């Protein structure tokens, strides 16, 4: 194979991020300086975002393979955009959050950059090897980030919990890959899909099931969701934002590619498994979120339910996947989730023992900080999927996908889930307006104004994408 510069051009966003990582590492080694590290990170994300423009697939929408491992197409770049955007927001949230932290603050950006780079590799992977490398590159820094403020309550516990369970899932996945390889003798997605039903044996089917389990674990779908609330609760709020957006987007993207590229029979088989899992997720997520007084835990359970909704377009049509609906929903989910975690993050600081994550912290927030409170109203409405917000547009596409396939059972689950979900979203929303405050609780932390600005921006984005979704929808429909 002849490697030229053009071969690696599609990799530009990943390369930019990697160079930034190295530069940042050197900068920290020379002199610790929080602001510098932060701005290097931001510059890295911005340059990476800009560099997407120069990649071939983005301009002419042709799928470009890089060696046999990666495949860059329109969808990969869409997810790249989404993750870089989320990474940028997380960086800003992290800066305000960690400003007052007593010990080392700079390495967290390093971890963030590596995690996002891992995500970028993951969304483009078309081979089991790159799939695994991307997944580990994404996950390993996140263990560190979850436990970064290790002396705070619960952080270490959450980090270790995530590490051990994640490692177990990775082991499942590796074993599954080995089983698949034992039968079909290839590791590329296309190769597997061509040979899996030609060769005899049950190993590959079993292996694919194990891989699916690992992916469900990463996406925290029931019944593999048990780690989610604890880790979300223990992780610092900006890291929670990263966990809930970047790692979900990346894993979902690779799952979509797996489903699209493997043969119809296998997709069909996986879909029938996923139907059970998604209904379970909707039920479990919504029911357990009902009684949570901790907003992070509530968001964790609600993200389980959202992943359930998101799986509906994956399974409705036998053998194919409604990628457009998945992408629209992902866009809505990422923007809204960033806003929700951003709001918690704005009220919290690494210097305090706990984040301001109890519903009591949100009581009367609208009167103390109308901007943050007002933004929070739209974020909750968007999570609940009420019109005027992007959450509704996402839900609308999921509905359309399910109606189009006449999956009435899934629609019933979706409607019931949304109805139950309303209860806890409204509960948080109305507590923002409470007049009487719980003494002592509301004073926790100083509200970081620049984080508030960021959350307000998210709210504006939520409303804009909800009221005038045409450009975004057109962009997504044009992806190939």
């Amino acid at each position: 194979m002849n490697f030229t510069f053009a071969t690696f051009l599609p990799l530009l966003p990943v390369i930019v991020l990697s160079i930034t990582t190295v530069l940042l590492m050197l900068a920290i080694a020379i002199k610790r300086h929080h602001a510098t590290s932060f701005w290097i990170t931001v510059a890295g994300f911005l340059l990476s975002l800009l560099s997407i423009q120069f990649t071939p697939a983005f301009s002419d929408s042709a799928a470009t393979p890089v060696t046999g491992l990666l495949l860059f197409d329109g969808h990969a770049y869409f997810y790249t955009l989404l993750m870089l955007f989320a990474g940028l927001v997380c960086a800003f949230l992290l800066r305000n959050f960690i400003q007052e932290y007593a010990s080392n603050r700079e390495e967290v950006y390093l971890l963030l950059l590596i995690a996002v780079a891992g995500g970028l590799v993951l969304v483009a992977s078309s081979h089991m090897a790159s799939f695994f490398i991307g997944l580990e590159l994404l996950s390993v820094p996140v263990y560190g980030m979850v436990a970064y403020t290790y002396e705070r309550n619960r952080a270490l516990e959450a980090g270790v919990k995530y590490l051990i369970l994640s490692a177990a899932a990775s082991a499942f996945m590796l074993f599954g890959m080995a089983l698949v390889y034992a039968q079909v003798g290839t590791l590329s997605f296309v190769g597997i899909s061509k040979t899996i039903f030609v060769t005899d044996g049950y190993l590959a089917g079993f292996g694919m099931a194990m891989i699916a389990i690992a992916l469900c674990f990463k996406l925290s779908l029931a019944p593999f969701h048990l780690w989610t609330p604890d880790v979300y609760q223990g992780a610092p709020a900006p890291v929670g934002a990263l966990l809930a957006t970047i790692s979900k987007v990346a894993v979902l993207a690779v799952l979509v590619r797996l489903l699209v590229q493997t043969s119809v029979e296998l997709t069909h088989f996986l879909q029938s498994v996923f139907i059970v899992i998604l209904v379970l997720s909707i039920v479990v997520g919504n029911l357990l979120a009902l009684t949570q007084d901790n907003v992070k835990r509530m968001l964790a359970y609600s993200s389980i339910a959202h992943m359930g909704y998101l799986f509906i377009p994956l399974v409705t049509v036998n053998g194919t996947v409604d990628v457009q609906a998945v992408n629209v929903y992902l866009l809505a989910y990422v923007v809204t989730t960033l806003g929700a975690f951003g709001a918690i993050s704005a009220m919290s600081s690494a210097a305090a023992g706990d984040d301001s994550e109890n519903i009591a912290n949100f009581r009367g927030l609208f009167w103390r900080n109308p901007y943050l409170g007002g933004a929070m109203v739209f974020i909750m409405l968007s999570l609940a999927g009420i019109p005027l917000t992007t959450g509704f547009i996402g839900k609308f596409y999921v509905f359309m996908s399910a109606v189009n396939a006449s999956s009435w059972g899934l629609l019933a689950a979706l409607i019931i889930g949304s109805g139950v979900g309303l209860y806890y979203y409204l509960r948080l929303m109305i507590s923002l307006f409470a007049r009487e405050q719980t003494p002592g609780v509301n004073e926790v932390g100083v509200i970081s104004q620049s984080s508030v600005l960021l959350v307000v921006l998210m709210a504006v984005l939520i409303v804009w994408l909800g009221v005038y979704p045409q450009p975004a929808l057109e962009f997504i429909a044009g992806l190939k």
Partner: protein
Amino acid sequence: MTLSALILIPFVGGLLCWQGERLGAGIPRWIALICMSLVLAIGINFWLAGNYSGATAAAGLNWQAEEQYSWIPILGVSIHFALDGLSLVMILLTGLLGVIAVGCSWKEISTNVGAFHMNLLWSLAGVIGVFLALDMMLFFFFWELMLIPVYFLISLWGRASENKQLRVQAATKFFIYTQVGGLIMLVGILALVLVNYKATQQLSFDYEALLSAHKHMSAELQFALMLCFFVGFAVKLPIVPVHSWLPDAHAEAPTAGSVDLAGILLKTAGYGMLRFTLPFFPDASQEFANAAMLLGVFGIFYGAFLAFVQTDIKRLIAYTSISHMGFVLIGIYSGNLLTLQGLAIQMLAHGLCAGGLFVLAGQLHERLGTYDMRKMGGLWANYSYLPALLMFFAAALLGIPGTANFVGEFLILVGAFKVVPVLTSVATASLVLAGVYSLILIHRTLFGKSATEGKGVDLSARELTLVVSLAVVLLVIGFYPQPLLNVSVDAMTFIQHTYAPVDVSNPLLTGPLPVGGSASPVVTP
């Protein structure tokens, strides 16, 4: 532009109210009053300028004004407003009750006046949007949007009881009920659109494009989709098995919220059934008509019985609403011109009458500090205007001739009798119960031993104007309903033509009746 203005005026007015509070607590009230008066004035202007009983009455749609803007072309969604007689009647009602709602909260609301009026105006903007939207997606947007302000109205400015959780619970219940109903309707809308898309290769949410979609689907599918729409509207109407949010919401809502809910929001459901369910699914609706009318009759009696045993005056009025909505359901599914015309009057009359009663209940609450009828009594001796007006509205509620309620109920019953004589006879018997609950309302509040000592503060000029104007409108329509019937005739004729009426079950009554029958009851000049 005028149609968009009808929605934009309250919407922008709401924003002004919110910010205007900085200039003084009185500013939002005046802004809101001016906005709603403007809406009413535009509505009256449409009434005077338009021709609602034109020659096109045979089967065409008679839009008096129409506007269309591009919105989400990729989904075939556009901003499409249009106004015909039916929408106009509803908008006149909204404008009038909007003014009343602003007026009745003049003294009642003292905290966050700006935000209160913003929510009030936005809910009214949503309702007007529902009455004007001709694109199903746009309709759904407004349908859901009007819930959020009402949710805030109830949960933030609701009844000041010791347990604030109660009103939040009532508001949440209201929201969840209507939202789930809305999502079920969304399924129906999407299925309808996709069926139409597969048949014509055109993705469109437009009303007129979807009118023929039922020709492309099997009878079972049509029935299922009709049920989706029906459930969505039934929750809002409300029809008995899904009604339980209504009494709670009313009991906890501020007066303006109750006026808004009973007077206008419930009517959106009746409007939706007329405008969408019947024309979209004519065959399935016919098949379903008997079941729907049975539900209606059941609701009439259920509401009436429960109204009788209430001790809270607002809950009593809420249950009478459920009872009256039963009549609306019978009127819709009987589907001949008489009942449809009666419906327009009935919805209007019920809105005005329930609105007036809620305003009076609010005024009683301002004076006595309670809605509990056990703590009232003997009011006749203490006030001069209030008891008489309460008596008038109670009489209107039971449908005394001379009030608009009588005209509406009479037309519905006469029309429905030709279609389902047995059911109609049963429903007519419920008018006795209406008498019973109206009398118990008057008896408990006005007569007996006075619970409070001495003369109370009587109605101020503002309060008197509000209530008397409602009473006057009820009387005018009661004595001379013809101008109103002329407004709705074209729209109703269209609906009747798309929804061929249920087969007449009694062959003795097939011929034209002297009161109208197959001939139009409306004499156009």
